[in-house]
């Protein structure tokens, strides 16, 4: 069974540009979560989507946004990129809202803003 897949693996953008990160959940999972891991910090919760709706949002500015498609895949968009947005962005999926033992993470997208 395929795990959570994220693309691209690495992304380099210039300050002020927009970045789009993609996530495909495990088959059967309806919830997708996005986390940011900046250097020296733990995983910071960004967004939770379930059944196409945004269910919860972390303490990030509005230029971090996303959506979930009918097939439950998800996009994370970061507008007006800043240098401090450079981080590893992790996506996880689970059955509806069960962010515990049943959640699985992808390998992440390394975003570098120059």
């Amino acid at each position, binding site marked *: 069974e395929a795990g959570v897949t994220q693309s691209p693996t690495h992304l380099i953008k210039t300050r002020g540009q927009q970045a789009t990160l993609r996530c495909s959940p495990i088959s059967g999972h309806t919830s997708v979560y996005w986390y940011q891991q900046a250097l020296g910090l*733990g995983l910071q919760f960004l967004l*939770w989507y379930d059944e196409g709706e945004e269910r919860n949002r972390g303490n990030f500015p509005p230029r971090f946004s996303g959506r979930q498609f009918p097939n439950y895949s998800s996009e994370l968009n970061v507008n007006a990129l800043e240098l401090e947005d450079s981080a590893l962005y992790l996506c996880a999926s689970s059955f509806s809202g069960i962010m515990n033992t049943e959640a699985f*993470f992808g390998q992440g997208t390394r975003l570098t803003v120059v």
Partner: protein
Amino acid sequence: DQQVKQNSPSLSVQEGRISILNCDYTNSMFDYFLWYKKYPAEGPTFLISISSIKDKNEDGRFTVFLNKSAKHLSLHIVPSQPGDSAVYFCAATPRASYGKLTFGQGTILTVHP
């Protein structure tokens, strides 16, 4: 405001000995706790969890202890193996199905042969 803290950035242990990783939390609403392990270039993988109704949970070489009065949990790995070398994150949530986890900063465990 760091609600989940792992105060030791790194830990070095000899193979066969016990590894003890610690985690403190401040939010008394947290009642479900998890440990994740992360290797370089991979996403975190779930290791073990504990509900606040328990004070101990074991799974093979891994045991998690919860001290609610001290708002402290620890992960014990016995015996430690070189393959256990990774970054360990503790995480907490108010409910098992809340949809959001609050993570600590992580502890880098190195197990020497």
